[in-house]
């Protein structure tokens, strides 16, 4: 019997070690668990140091964050805020798991929000939002949607991105930007210049879903295509809007000729460089985010261009003016050492008009609250205004939160690549397969 003892002990130790490593350590009381300080007056919070992790890394971006936090320091002089730049999502997840969570963390994307909310990586802000009487209706519905999951609002929107159409005025030859998909097709064909052998020299519009920002999530709002059913299962195969979008797109791809379009696309180089084809007059119209305005200003200051909302399905004129939005989110991770002070910082950065306007003016992203959008201090011209309007449009949408957000978007994106090259024989069957992949994965993830 005594020979078995070491084995049993080792087995017990291993089991204990295995189960122990699955949960992040609780470092501090959860947000909202403690009685609320009387108001948010600076004197009610003890002196402390907060650590804020963010993904910005360029010097101008880091300075913008410092400037925005300066207002918080004035309001809460006893709280020191230490900013840590260039942090990615996986670092946040690992830090929380390891019990070394920062007090506040922000992410560039919204893809992990559902997982973070469900697993409790970020604390539910609902109790303190209610305590402090914050009116979330000042946020567009899309921003509210991408910051919560299953009733848990675990992050707040910090800055947003909105997507629209950029057009090169010289290449447009006096044509107005298209408002419908058929107008886009017509104009794209009209503005395309080819060499004698059919090689594309200048494209009116590149319809490939593999081109820069033309990904599924960004183009779906053009036809109001739905990602999910109310029960969280995939709606891609059953929503006719996707089919309409795909058939429109394939017709234009075929007009260019897939091979010729693909060769042209691959000759265009990198999206994040001063050689962007839109700057160089190789593409007349492109789908892009509001941040491109700032890039054009610094990389192609002489470019004569305009912006407009994305064209929409011909039979859905009500969609015109809307588009895709997502953006930076910020919250209080589980295990934050100073959750109440951390919440004050999150609240300040996401609801204080001055902070949001400061950040927006520096980063040229869209501020999220109604007051900041209407602030006279917000720097804007006609080109930036387009995106502010898109963001504020009631039909502007996002990819709803899902625990498999990344997987689902990739499943669709992979299908789209095969679709445009003509590898899909039957669209219905192909989309049904996408549904199946997404739904199978949903089951595995505990739906």
């Amino acid at each position, binding site marked *: 019997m005594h020979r078995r003892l070491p084995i049993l002990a080792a087995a017990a130790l*291993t089991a204990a*070690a*295995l*189960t122990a*490593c*699955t*949960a*992040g350590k609780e470092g501090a009381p959860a947000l909202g668990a403690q009685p609320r300080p009387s108001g948010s007056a600076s004197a009610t919070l003890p002196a402390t140091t907060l650590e804020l992790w963010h993904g910005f890394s360029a010097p101008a971006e880091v300075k913008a964050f410092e400037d925005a936090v300066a207002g918080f320091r004035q309001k809460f002089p006893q709280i020191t805020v230490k900013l840590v730049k260039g942090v990615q999502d*996986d670092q946040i997840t690992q830090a*929380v*798991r390891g019990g070394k969570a920062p007090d506040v963390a922000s992410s*560039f*994307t*919204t*893809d992990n929000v559902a*997982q973070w909310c*469900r*697993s*409790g990586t970020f604390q539910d802000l609902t109790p303190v939002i209610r305590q402090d009487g914050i009116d979330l209706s000042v946020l567009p519905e899309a921003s509210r949607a991408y910051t919560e999951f299953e009733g848990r609002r675990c992050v707040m929107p910090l800055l947003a*991105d909105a*997507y629209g159409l950029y057009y090169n005025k010289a290449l447009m030859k006096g044509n107005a930007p298209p408002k419908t998909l058929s107008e886009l097709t017509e104009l794209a064909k009209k503005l395309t210049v080819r060499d004698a052998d059919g090689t594309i020299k200048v494209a009116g519009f590149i319809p490939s879903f*593999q*081109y*820069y*920002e033309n*990904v*599924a*999530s*960004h183009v779906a709002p053009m036809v109001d295509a739905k990602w999910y059913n109310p029960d969280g299962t995939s709606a891609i195969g059953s929503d006719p809007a996707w089919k309409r979008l795909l058939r429109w797109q394939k017709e234009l791809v075929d007009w260019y000729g897939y091979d010729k379009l693909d*060769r042209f*696309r*691959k*000759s*265009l*180089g*990198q*999206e994040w460089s001063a050689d962007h084809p839109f700057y160089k007059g190789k593409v007349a119209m492109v789908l892009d*985010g509001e941040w491109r305005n700032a890039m054009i200003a610094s990389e192609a200051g002489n470019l004569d261009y305009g912006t407009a909302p994305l064209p929409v399905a011909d039979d859905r004129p009500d969609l015109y003016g809307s588009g*895709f939005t*997502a*953006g*930076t989110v910020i919250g209080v991770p589980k295990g934050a050492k100073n959750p109440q002070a951390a919440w004050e910082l999150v609240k300040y950065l996401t609801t204080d008009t001055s902070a949001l306007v400061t950040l927006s003016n520096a980063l040229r992203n869209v501020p999220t609250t109604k007051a900041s959008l209407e602030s006279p201090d917000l720097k804007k011209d006609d080109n930036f205004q387009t995106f502010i309007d898109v963001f504020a449009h009631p039909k502007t949408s*996002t*990819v709803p939160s899902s*625990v*498999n957000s*990344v*997987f689902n978007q*990739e499943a669709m*994106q*992979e299908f789209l*690549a*095969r679709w445009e090259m003509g*590898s899909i024989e039957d669209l219905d069957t192909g989309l049904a397969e996408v549904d199946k*992949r997404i739904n*199978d*994965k949903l089951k*595995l*993830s*505990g739906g």
Partner: protein
Amino acid sequence: MSGVTHAAPPRWRRGEGRKALLWMSPWLVGFAVFFAYPLAATVYFSFHRYDLFTLEFIGLDNYRYFLHDDRAWVSIKNTLWLVVFMVPAQVLFGLAVAQLLTRLKAGSGFFRTVFYLPSLVPLVAGTVSFVFLMNPSGPLNQIIELFGITAPDWFGDKDWAKPGLTLLAMWGIGNTMMIFLAALLDVPKHLYEAAAIDGAGGWRQFRSITLPMISPVLMFSTVTGVIYALQYFTQAMIASRVAAGVTDSPGSSFVPGYPELSTLTLPQWLFHAGFRDFSMGYACVLALLLFAASVIFTLVLIRRFRTFADGQGGNP
């Protein structure tokens, strides 16, 4: 023999055993911490739904999902392709270059340096450069087209992406080549002289002297090459990202394996499942598969090489 046994007294044996354990303890600790525990954890998590925070026992669901996961099977096929084609290409090219270098009368040092240098280039930088060099209008294709041959779209065509990665691997054979070179220079010259006197030609000398003499090195290169191919990740990931021209802006997504999943390897899919999709339990199933494949390939290769060396009269 008298049949008298000299067995040590039990107490002495126990003392020796303790000493042996003491001396072995660094290894035992390392083995327990870096092998036994991770392996046990992987098996344990493979029966759970585990999103890095919460754990729920789901029995064989992760294994069942694997059976119907098309992408996992595609990634396995791609990984096997690399084992079957990339590893031999790498080993043979490394051996050929080393063999040529042994014959050089002049400039050997220069060429050794030239062939070794690429292996010093960081993987990411080397891969990015390679993809640019081989892009449809890049310099390599321009050279190929000078000969009237239509050059392929190396990393944009599903039929050429894996051969493209193989060329990249061959470009970086510096380490393998140096090991082969050392082994080749170690083969006693008199064996070749004797064989030549007996009338053996170049091929016969290579087959009957060189190969058996370097077979331990050949086995080492092949086994490490196979394990490396089974763990192939960085180059495939970077090449597909660069070739696809993907972005990281909000709402964007990157599909690993571009084009058309042709460069999706098992480690990439495993990484994706665990760290992008938060399905760590499923990733553990894939990790166990990878581990099993590594063990099987290694055992088979060692067995084959032993048979080969024995048959050739070598001394592996």
